[in-house]
């Protein structure tokens, strides 16, 4: 009796990984999915924060893909281990702080560890030669296989016929002739294959699946590192970079001001960790202070908060300042006119 072969598919939630897993599944291989959470993933949670986005469907695309395929999905928290990839990418950053090639190597390496622990045979990714400028080029694909340690246990079903045969192909675990030879940035072959499989409602992420590809987000992360004097972050730091207006009036502190009710509710969860301000004489946003602010700094922060409150045109706004330990005092301040807020404060 032929041994049932088992593969783990890296599932991002996008179309390519869905198709890659499906192609192998169709060949009788038992496929399970693995999805890695780095902390920078662009997922439904940003919609969950912002109230105006709450009407949008909130689904985890990786879980949705697993449901379409009828496979189990293992979601792995790699937030801590991933820091080294972000801090020191051997192959450098992309246009922003995106370490795409190192990221792919790291994820395939984690998948390789997983298959060894769980007695699976090989790894599937949805990579396509020429699809991405850094991580999915003909010359970098062997780098991913080699540096991850997966070597020829890494199968890319969508472009396998453009690459040397891997062990699953050589050993007959999968039929190479039933794999594909996609290449380049065109999405048409994938869309045609999706139609053939009957997939219609797949995710089409605009701007990638990672906040590190975003210029504004990368600028805020760079600012965080500069302020701290070193490349360092915790999960809360990188989550907060996704929320609110960030203004840095001085190197030693910044003000994070909620932009709407959903963000107010989210920032409320951090009141026990950060000095926080909110107007009390007028309705207005909650703000957090990141850093060690002096009394003068807090007064300045209160003026900024007042500027974004309903009292922005009033001569004076009362702003409550709460310490994480419970101390509360109120400042009476004049809202800072928008023209007086230096552009370089806005991150």
């Amino acid at each position, binding site marked *: 009796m032929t041994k049932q072969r088992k593969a783990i598919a890296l599932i991002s939630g996008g179309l390519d990984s869905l198709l890659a897993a499906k192609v192998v599944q169709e060949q009788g291989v038992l496929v399970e999915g693995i999805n890695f959470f780095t902390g920078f993933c662009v997922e439904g*949670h940003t919609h969950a924060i912002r109230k105006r986005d709450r009407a949008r469907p909130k689904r*985890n695309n990786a879980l949705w893909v*697993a449901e379409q395929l009828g496979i*189990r999905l293992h979601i792995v*928290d790699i937030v801590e281990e991933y820091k080294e990839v972000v801090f020191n990418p051997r192959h450098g950053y992309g246009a922003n702080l995106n370490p795409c090639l190192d990221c792919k190597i790291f994820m395939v390496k984690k998948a390789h560890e997983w298959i060894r622990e769980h007695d699976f045979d090989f790894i599937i990714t949805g990579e396509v030669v020429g699809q991405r400028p850094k991580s999915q080029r003909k010359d970098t694909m062997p780098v991913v296989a080699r540096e991850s340690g997966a070597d020829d246990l890494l199968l890319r079903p969508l472009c396998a016929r453009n690459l040397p045969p891997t062990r699953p192909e050589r050993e007959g675990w999968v039929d190479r002739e039933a794999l594909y030879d996609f290449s380049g940035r065109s999405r048409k072959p994938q869309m045609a294959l999706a139609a053939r499989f009957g997939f219609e409602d797949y995710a089409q992420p605009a701007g990638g699946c990672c906040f590190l590809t975003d210029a504004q987000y990368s600028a805020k992360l760079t600012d965080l590192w500069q302020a701290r004097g070193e490349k360092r972050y915790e999960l809360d730091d990188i989550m907060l970079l996704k929320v609110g207006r960030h203004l840095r009036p001085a190197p030693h502190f910044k003000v994070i001001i909620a932009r709407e009710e959903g963000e107010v509710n989210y920032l409320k969860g951090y009141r026990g960790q950060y000095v926080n301000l909110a107007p009390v004489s007028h309705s207005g946003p909650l703000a957090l202070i990141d850093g060690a602010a002096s009394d003068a700094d807090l007064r300045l922060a209160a003026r900024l908060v007042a500027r974004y409150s309903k009292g922005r045109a009033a001569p004076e706004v009362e702003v409550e300042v709460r310490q994480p330990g419970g101390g509360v005092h109120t400042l009476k301040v004049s809202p800072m006119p928008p023209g007086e807020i230096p552009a370089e404060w806005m991150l």
Partner: protein
Amino acid sequence: MKRVVLDARRLLCPMPVIRVQDRVAGLSPGTELEAVCTDPGVLNDIPAWCRVNGHTVVETRTEGDEYIVVIRVEPTG
């Protein structure tokens, strides 16, 4: 029936799902896990996770700003 509570407040998806997944791995079949969350995304994501991994959603409810999902751990291959 044994029921355990998981505090996943203030976590954004997929972290509550990961916490549920990791806690379920250490629970016996038949145990109920009550996840208390503040991200409304869990109302979709935890049931989806249960469907793909073979566990049962017993109840979902909203209490003020909190979203509670109760699942029953099923025997899985």
